[in-house]
């Protein structure tokens, strides 16, 4: 709309203090600076592998025990999109499984 209006008036801009307050928190978090950090990723845990024949698999029964191709003291794999990005020791935290990181074979931070 163009034209004079009886409610329009001139804004008086106030004077600003150029020096910030010393105790004020940082305006932007790291996540806000790099939004990629907010992307959620799913880490999968592979305890080990079983090698067997199709015949053995088809004949498998309940409570049958299959050894894994991994020794007790060997770490489990943490996979990201199917690739191993870390290894660790299988532990418990409260009543949940957890992995304590022991190897970071690839630099996770480029």
């Amino acid at each position, binding site marked *: 709309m163009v034209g004079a209006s009886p409610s329009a008036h001139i804004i008086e801009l106030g004077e600003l203090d150029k020096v910030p307050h010393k105790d004020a928190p940082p305006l932007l978090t790291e996540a806000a600076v790099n939004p990629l950090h907010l992307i959620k990723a799913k880490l999968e845990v592979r305890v080990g592998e079983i090698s067997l024949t199709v015949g053995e698999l088809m004949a498998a029964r*309940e409570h049958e025990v299959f050894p894994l191709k991994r020794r007790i003291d060997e770490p489990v794999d943490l996979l990201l999109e199917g690739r191993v990005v870390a290894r660790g020791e299988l532990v418990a935290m409260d009543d949940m499984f957890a992995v304590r990181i022991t190897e970071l074979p690839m630099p996770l931070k480029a």
Partner: protein
Amino acid sequence: MAESRLVRPLRWWTPQAMAGLSRRLEAAWATWCGGWGFERRPVVCANSSEASEAYATVRRWQRVGILGGDGIWIGSPHAEPAHWLQQGLFAAGPTRQPSPVASRVVLEAWQDLQHEIACAIAPETDATARSSEPPPSGLPAGHRLSWSGAVGAQLSVANGLLGALVVHIGPSAAAAHCVVARGTASATQARSPLASVADALGHRRVSLDVHLGEAEIELGMLQSLRIGDVVVLDHALHQPATVQWTTASEPGGRSVLFEGHLGRLGPCKAIETAPRRIAATLNH
């Protein structure tokens, strides 16, 4: 699997297999030519897909019989089939208007040829079935494909000015006359016995992965992981692990074959299969 497409048997005839059909056509052609004063040439039979040159000369098809649900057609190099006879009997081209008597003779000769061909190949053609619907003027789709089993026969006379007629015999009609030599009993006995899929694949070795649950983590946190950090999984201690098969056909696709509880067997980790079996496909 081709479930929605039309599945057709593979049919292709050797000259030996077509010999009987060829003899029948030869006899019919000889009878007709003898009756109408034509000097005939031998009938040439071929699988329809291998007689492209002969089929290319046909301008019009006319069905003359039905056998085994398939038709028998006569193809003429003229748009009007009777013109072929008009030219052969009276040396009159298609543009010349024949006399009423000549037209009558031509029509009779043409009907006689249809009758001879029909009697030779489909003697039991049901006349009512033929007349209940207008006979199709073109060949059915697929009859000219390789391995269709349809047969094309060239009927020609010594007068080189007359193009050949083509008799097209549909696959089922041809099959009624084409004899395929079967394997002997000894050949059947020499076949390998059938094996079950389990026997055939039983010795193939496969590798399965034992997985626990996942941990959802932000990329920033993932990048700051250090040795000694603990990542908690969404997998309770009492829950069984899953044994999975990675399917190559679908990236990331996995099939959970069964579940089991972790343990040890000698120096190795081990898994004991749980009673409840899962056969669902996970697609993460």
